């Protein structure tokens, strides 16, 4: 049997990503959200899985991306695509700067304290946005209308988010193969040891968060335009939904593995869509139940569970 390599899987996903919206135009929005979830899981895993810093505040960078795009598109008066491009650029700059500032302040905190601190960050950001008139305060912001024909918008954002997820995956895959990837793992396994071995842990940690922020900000700008409206607490800084899902998807697939976050995002998103379709009214309950199942039965995620099974089979044979 030929070995299935990363490249085979990537090829298959690329084909599905390119053909999907054309074959199933009715599902374009759902597929676009799937790629958004992949970006969420991948960027969360950079810190949570690879570096051992469980952030519940990554949603902040997504929200910054949403608002930066909306403000630029509203205030510059540029045509749609120019405005969108400039908005995405502004979003990445703001989010990366925020990651550097928050990182310098918070990445010195370890373990649960970091998790709780970032949770506060996410909640605070939502409250600030909800009280700030310049960004529409509690009533949120409407994004400009997509100029193309009906149905084109979904296709456009489906491809944009697919491209973003693909680039994010390839960049992270390359990074995890470098000394930087090893340094992240070293910080996760024993931070004090990494310091004692002379690693420059502070810039490494900040860079990792800033890179996650970069991709999250772009995803925020694109998602805001796709949805057409941003609410401070339910869309941009949606800590209780997007913010928690990021963590769940990475854990479900397998923290700190290459394919874990991607697989987790697929399984989670499909399951969620099925809940909405078949268990309407109970979908939140079903989701809560799914979370319990993930934590109890797949503490190492699907990839970890598979690796364990393989090890057991090999030991048994």
């Amino acid at each position, binding site marked *: 049997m030929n070995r299935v390599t990363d490249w085979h899987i990537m090829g298959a996903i690329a084909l599905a990503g390119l053909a999907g919206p054309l074959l199933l135009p009715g599902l374009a929005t759902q597929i676009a959200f799937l790629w958004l979830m992949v970006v969420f899981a991948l960027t969360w895993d950079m810190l949570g899985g690879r570096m051992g810093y469980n952030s519940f505040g990554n949603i902040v960078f997504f929200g910054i991306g949403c608002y930066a795009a909306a403000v630029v598109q509203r205030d510059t008066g540029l045509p749609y695509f120019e405005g969108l491009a400039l908005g995405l650029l502004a979003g990445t700059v703001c989010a990366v700067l925020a990651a550097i500032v928050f990182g310098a302040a918070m990445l010195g905190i370890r373990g649960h304290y970091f998790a709780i601190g970032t949770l506060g960050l996410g909640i605070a950001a939502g409250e600030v946005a909800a009280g700030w008139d310049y960004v529409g305060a509690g009533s949120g912001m409407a994004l400009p209308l997509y100029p193309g024909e009906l149905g084109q918008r979904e296709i456009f954002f489906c491809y944009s988010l697919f491209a973003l997820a693909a680039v994010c995956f390839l960049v992270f895959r390359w990074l995890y193969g470098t000394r930087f990837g090893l340094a992240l*793992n*070293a910080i996760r396994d024993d931070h004090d040891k990494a310091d*004692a071995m*002379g690693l*420059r842990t502070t810039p490494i940690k900040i860079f990792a968060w800033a890179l996650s922020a970069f991709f999250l900000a772009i995803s925020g700008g694109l998602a805001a335009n796709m949805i057409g409206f941003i609410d401070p607490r339910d869309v941009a800084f949606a800590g209780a939904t997007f913010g928690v899902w990021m963590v769940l998807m990475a854990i479900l697939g397998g923290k700190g593995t290459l394919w874990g976050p991607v697989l987790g995002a697929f399984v989670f998103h499909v399951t969620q869509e099925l809940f909405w379709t078949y268990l309407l009214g109970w979908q939140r309950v079903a989701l809560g139940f799914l979370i319990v199942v993930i934590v109890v039965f797949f503490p190492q995620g699907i990839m970890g569970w598979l690796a364990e099974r393989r090890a057991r089979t090999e030991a048994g044979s």
Partner: protein
Amino acid sequence: MSVLLDVQNVTKRFGGVVANERVSLTVRQGEIAGLIGPNGSGKTTLFGSIAGAHAVDGGDILFEGRSIRHLRSAPIARRGLLRTYQQTRIYDDMTCTENMAISAREAQGSLLSLLRPVPPATNAHAGDLLGFVGLYEKRGDKAGSLSFGQQKLLEFAMALMNEPKLLLLDEPTAGINPTLINGLIDRLRRANTELGVTLLVIEHNMRVIMNLAHRITCLAHGRVLAEGAPEEVREDKRVLDAYLGVA
């Protein structure tokens, strides 16, 4: 021989407990120095003070003639002064080879220099050093799956990978199978002579330290009790009393 490490009157307190009181010792370039003393005499605390794990309350620490008293552990490590831990510290979820690769000197470089794969030469060198401590067959295994003794050897190999000028070893033979101890002593000596690493070794096993060290310092109750050649320290009545508990 020039002085590589010069600890001058270092005092370290934890609350009301004085762990080290005006401790002075020197380590000369190229030697193997020993540090002994009963449990709780302040040996590991002194290692922590030297390696920048905590701030000291008094005195000064010179490495290659420059004060490192106010530096933290990472910049001290980058100057070429490393320590190992009594309770071994390795990267559990990484393979032995990865543990070695991230311990290489080049991994201490700038963020930008980290953004490239581990060069084949580094992995080859890692393999050589793993062979040196007898862990070559385990190179692809997760470090956390090794036995305590093997982890101790891995930690030693990781330190060598960094090519330090001075290596502080905290009980390198603790937990090592007694039949392997002679082999380990031989490796410590070879690291010293062949790789040119100066060693300062904390050791409880008297047979080991008397064999290994050129000079020995004995601590008791946080103070230097005696120092000198192994045979002098071994015969020193105060040292015997400290170990046997005679007041």
